[in-house]
């Protein structure tokens, strides 16, 4: 697959991930030699355009969080390229990386571990300014207050400690910390999955508002399809370290072309007890990325897999409809 072909003509991406691989060595034996690799991310490519939200969905172990962490170099990639406005993030030296980090930020899943319990949240938010040597204490403090107001908190919150906040408020603080350097791009790593539903809605609305107001670009990593559908412009579905399908939101949710996406969508519980729902029940569990199935990685659980083909040849992402890419040999059957 040529990754480049995935970018659409006329638009230039803010971020482009090309053939990204992240392997974790498995060591064994007396000498702790490498005996195998866990292929957490195996040849993943996609692009994110300015001002849009790319949703990245998949079940646990599919590699979605690893992708997001390698993009910010919180994990070192094994191979591949990540271009941020044309500059290769993976090739940047320490100084270049520090510069890049002003434009790329992350919001974490767990609002309870993402803030230093020892510090008033204002100081946690201000850390980025201190690290980058921006402003004097008074200026920093004013910027912290400004960003707190932006995420719907109040001035006096700056001097409170994390344990004095609820989960939703802490997530707002995490967003404030990500915003303080005025970044262009923010990775949202399951930002609402630890929150209660009523709070989840508040945070999702806040994220939408901030995107519109500040022209932010998001990578929204989540396992909840409904949430991803709500917030994303385009969606990529991952399975076992690979992208199974990538398409604009409407196309993907209206007409999923990969059997895995279809199963994932049918697995969402119904919204009303009277609703009749045809469910595609997948058999078995997700195989280990240590020893992924041959051919198409989904074939052992796939309801339409054909032996002799799907278990031998690995399908590549193909564009079947405008901007709708699928990695399935038989995706045409679903059009």
């Amino acid at each position, binding site marked *: 697959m040529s990754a480049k072909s995935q970018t659409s003509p006329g638009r230039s991406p803010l971020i482009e991930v090309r053939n990204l691989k992240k392997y974790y060595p498995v060591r064994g034996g007396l000498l702790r030699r490498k005996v195998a690799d866990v292929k957490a991310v195996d040849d993943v490519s996609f692009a994110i355009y300015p001002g849009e939200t790319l949703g990245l969905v998949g079940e646990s172990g599919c590699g979605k969080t690893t992708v997001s962490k390698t993009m*910010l170099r*919180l994990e070192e990639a094994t191979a591949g390229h990540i271009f941020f406005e044309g500059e290769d993030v993976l090739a940047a030296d320490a100084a270049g*990386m*520090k510069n890049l*980090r*002003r434009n*790329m*930020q*992350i919001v*974490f*899943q*767990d609002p309870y*571990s*993402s*803030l*230093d*319990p*020892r510090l*008033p949240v*204002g100081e*946690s938010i201000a*850390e*980025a300014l201190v*690290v*980058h040597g921006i402003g004097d*204490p*008074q200026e920093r*403090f*004013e910027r912290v*207050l*400004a960003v707190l*107001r*932006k995420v719907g908190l109040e*001035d006096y919150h*700056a*001097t*409170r*400690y994390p*344990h*004095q906040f609820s989960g939703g408020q802490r997530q707002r603080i*995490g967003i404030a*910390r990500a915003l303080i*350097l*005025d970044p262009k791009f923010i990775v949202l790593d399951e930002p609402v999955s630890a929150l209660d539903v009523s709070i989840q809605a508040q945070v999702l609305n806040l994220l939408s508002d901030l995107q519109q*107001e*500040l022209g932010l670009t998001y990578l929204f990593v989540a396992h909840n399809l409904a949430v991803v559908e709500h917030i994303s412009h385009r969606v990529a579905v991952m399975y076992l370290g690979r992208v199974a399908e990538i398409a604009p939101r409407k196309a993907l949710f209206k007409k999923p072309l990969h059997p895995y996406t279809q199963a994932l969508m049918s697995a969402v519980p119904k919204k009303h007890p009277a609703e009749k729902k045809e469910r595609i029940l997948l058999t078995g569990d997700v195989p280990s990325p240590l020893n992924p199935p041959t051919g198409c990685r989904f074939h052992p659980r796939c309801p339409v897999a054909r032996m002799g083909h799907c278990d031998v040849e690995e399908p590549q992402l193909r564009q079947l409809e405008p901007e709708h890419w699928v990695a399935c040999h038989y995706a045409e059957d679903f059009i």
Partner: protein
Amino acid sequence: MAVQSPPVASVEQVQDYRNNSLLFLTFRRLFRQRNAQVGMLILGFLVLVAIFAPALAPYDPDQSLIGVESIDKRAGPCIHLLGCPADQPEHYMGVDGNVRDQYSRIIYGTRVSLFIGFSTIGLAVIFGTIIGAVSGYAGGWVDNIIMRIMDVILAFPSFLLAIAIITVLGRGLQNALYAIAIVNVPVFARLVRSSVMSLKELDFVTASRSLGASPLRILFIRILPNAIPTLIVQATLSIGGAILEAAALSFLGLGAQPPLAEWGTMLGTERNQVFTSPHLVFFPGIAIMVTVLAFNLLGDGFRDAMDPRLAQLAKS
């Protein structure tokens, strides 16, 4: 970015917020705990005794009273209020084999024991923290080598190791202090290492990295301060142990040397008089016990005060 300019509070205006910090809350819980209260009470008392020893002690602790007073050696306690004849000199805890006032020696011994406890564990905490932090943060072969050395030290019975170290360094209180400190280093190294290893995986540390913070900043500003609470618990509990070890070394004649008023030495020199003059063994023994107990109670109190379970319950 929307320009807003409502009245902005200044940095100075909000300096009084520290009384909501976790450390403050921990101490508030600590002060409410019965164990810790008793421990702190005893410890506060001991510290006062140590500070005001010259005022409290009626005699010079090292001064023999031979020729000064007409009193037998190893004479028992004499307290006038309790009916001791008024013509005899008053000695609350009797006198020892060299005819020194035992009560004064016990009081001055408080200074020695507290000094031993804080200095040995202080040294152990400093070196243990550095070693553990490097080991835990670096990981890999650095960690492997450091921790195997610590394992070797831990594999020795600590008291035997202390004796071995003194054999090399020579006897004396100062060398005994070094020996006890060295023996305690691995305890803190391991503790700090495991705290660092678990803390460095937490999101707020990753967040610091994603902001571009340097490894040193992360280690010293983000990680280590959060390891302090567990360190305090272990240090408090270890002080009691260190005082005991020092007393034991002195008892064997390897630590504090006469005439220094040290409880272990006092026990050791008079150990053969257990049946004839029990007061000479009883009072130093009690003093050691009370001091160690105070530190242990306080350490347990700290542990309970930092137990996150109560906070967890409020969440569920």
